[in-house]
């Protein structure tokens, strides 16, 4: 249901999520994100341009790493969210806790700041 590709370049790891993240595929997302947060580069980009749907379980995965990212001083940005997916993040209020931007350039700018 979901495909997650990981590329690392200059201290920045990019996870590209393609497909739908529901209760069952959220486990994959959790594994991938956990790997990056715990052992990866300090900069994390999440490419959501291929993400067509995310359920509350998927949101729960992002939510569960907010605290870790903060304590480890990592910088993470999500980009390329379609309107529907963006709306789901917004309604729950995650837009206030995560960095959601439109383009990869904006995301890179956010991550390279600091």
């Amino acid at each position, binding site marked *: 249901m979901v495909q997650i590709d990981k590329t690392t370049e200059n201290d920045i790891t990019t996870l590209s999520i393609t497909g739908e993240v529901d209760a069952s595929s959220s486990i994959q997302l959790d594994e991938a994100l956990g790997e990056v947060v715990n052992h990866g580069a300090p900069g994390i980009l999440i490419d959501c341009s291929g993400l067509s749907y995310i359920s509350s379980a998927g949101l*729960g995965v992002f*939510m569960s790493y907010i605290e870790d990212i903060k304590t480890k001083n990592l910088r993470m940005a999500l980009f390329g969210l379609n309107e529907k997916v963006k709306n789901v993040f917004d309604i729950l209020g995650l837009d*206030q806790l995560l960095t959601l931007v439109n383009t990869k350039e904006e995301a890179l700018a956010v991550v390279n700041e600091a």
Partner: protein
Amino acid sequence: MLSKKGIIRIALILAVFSWLAMSLSDIIILFSRMSELVKPGIGHYFPDIFFILYALSLYVFYQYRIEAAHSSTFVDLLWKIFVTGLLTTVVSLLLKSLDFVMGNTSLLQNPVLIDSMFLIHLGLLPAFLISTFIVWKRLVLYQKTKLQIKAWTLFEYLLLVSLFSPFLPTVARAVVFYALILMGIFLSANMKWVAYLNFKQKWKSILLLILTQLYLAYFYMSLFDMRKTYEFLVVAQDSVFILSLLIFTGIYATFSLLVILFNLPTSSVFEQKLEEVVNFQRLSQSVQTEQSEKQVYEILLETSVRATKADAAWIEARVDEEDTVFRHNIGQDVIHNIKTYITSQKDHNPFDFAKTEKGLRPAKHLRKMKGVPFNSIVVLPITIAEEHLGMLVLLKELKEGFNKELLEITQTFVNQAGISIEGFRLMSEAIANERYKEELNIAKKVQSRLLPNVLDANDDFEITAFSAAADEVGGDYYDSFKINDDKVALIIGDVSGKGTSAAFHMSQMKGVFHGLAQLDLPPAEFLIRANRAISTSLDKTSFVTISYFVLDRTEKRVEFARAGHCPTLYFDHQQGKAAYFTNKGLGLGIVRNNSFANYVQPREFTYQPGDVLILYTDGITEAKNFKGEEFGYDRLAALVNDNARLDAPGLQQKIIAELYEFCGQTDLDDDYTTIIVKFK
């Protein structure tokens, strides 16, 4: 109706009575003949008629007494014949020895005494013959066909006719006699029961049959000797009936004896085949008898060893996620040595072979191996549906000790074991599934009890709610609480996750709601405290979204705040337009510290009659049609716009009907809930 026991008793009494009557009438006739002057008071045919009655009673008696034959009762049946024969012979011999002891005294020349002796024999012999006859009947008709039953019935009718032979003309007697002999030979060809005797039983049967024939010969001689010696005997019955019965029983006994004798050498093969079938059954039934996978392997090992007569064997398999070795007559160290030896050989490795391919292959690798007594080895893979479960290894001291037939039967055992194990796995899956369903049912019940039947209202507004859960238990929650006469608290929420954990979190949310609502808190404060209360009990990836409302009648005002729940839809009657509130908020449990307060934006508005407040869960806005389009916020707002004049239940029905029409199906994938508040 008479019971079986009753019939047996009556037949026995009748037999005794008719024998006594026969003897009495016979002796009366004898007396009158001897004195010549006195005319017998009864007809000369009386003894013969009583004999017929005697024979018929005996037939009924044994017919009910001797049970149908089964493979396990054949020898018992022969034993019964033997015992009956022994008893009758012993009685007869005692009488004769009496005769011998007395010598040729004048007393024993008395025709009456001789006749009595004859009559006693005439009572004993039919008892033995008819009981044997019934046993033969059971054996002949074992695994019967229609033709055999017909032939046997004809045979019995002919015997019945022969009973009346003293009243038949000589020609008819001869015809009946020869017909009986021929039919007897024809029927004697039926001896399927012999095949089911094992080696030991065959020997027993041979012994019992020889003894039976001795009795038959003895009776034949003693009875017909008497008939020849003393011409004054009255009862003529011994001619056709007894003779043909004697001959038939004798023929069948001889045939059986010969067939058993010729079957002796091959009986071990038949026994082995039978054992294979039984073992097969054991393997296939192991699933039903609540045994474990482990036991299936144990049965497989045992049966394979027995079927192939292997000297040693072992099975390697994964049982309950653990590598397990089942051994027969072989030590762990020997197994290890053999495995190391074979893997060290350069040509085909049977252990690898077992893992990769199906089929069987005798290997001769052990011939050159020193230190083990085994000279042939065979490895059979145990698989189910391409999955490799393990392997069976059989060892023999003989060179090339496994022939094709033995391996084929072992292969079927292995296959059956695979099927049994697959059955186990399917069964445990089914059980787990059943448990899960049961859990879901409980969760559903819990969930439905958490939702109120009636929501609190006052005369300023009417309120109606509707909630439906999908197959799985979801986490939609709504509730109301009357804070005081003027104030009503209202909550709608959605707990993330499904199943029992959702139901559990929902019940916690209900507790939090009822605990905090009565404190009459402003909505923002309610959310902050609810977040604090529920965060501690949610797992890392779970959260709860809610919207909390306080409807105040005195000021015609609604205060509310949103914690990550879907934006509230409001229809303003004056403007004639429905719109979503855009205040921000954050789901409960996402930020689990005091900073949560920063994310709460409380709002308030005053209401007018005709205004409508529409609360819902994401099951409605995210419902999809077959094209994958969502029902969406705009469609919901437009629907409310067009139907706002309806009362609360009317609007609710409209929304539900529209939703189902949009989805084009009766089952929705998600839970959905609406609450309509219409102000008056």
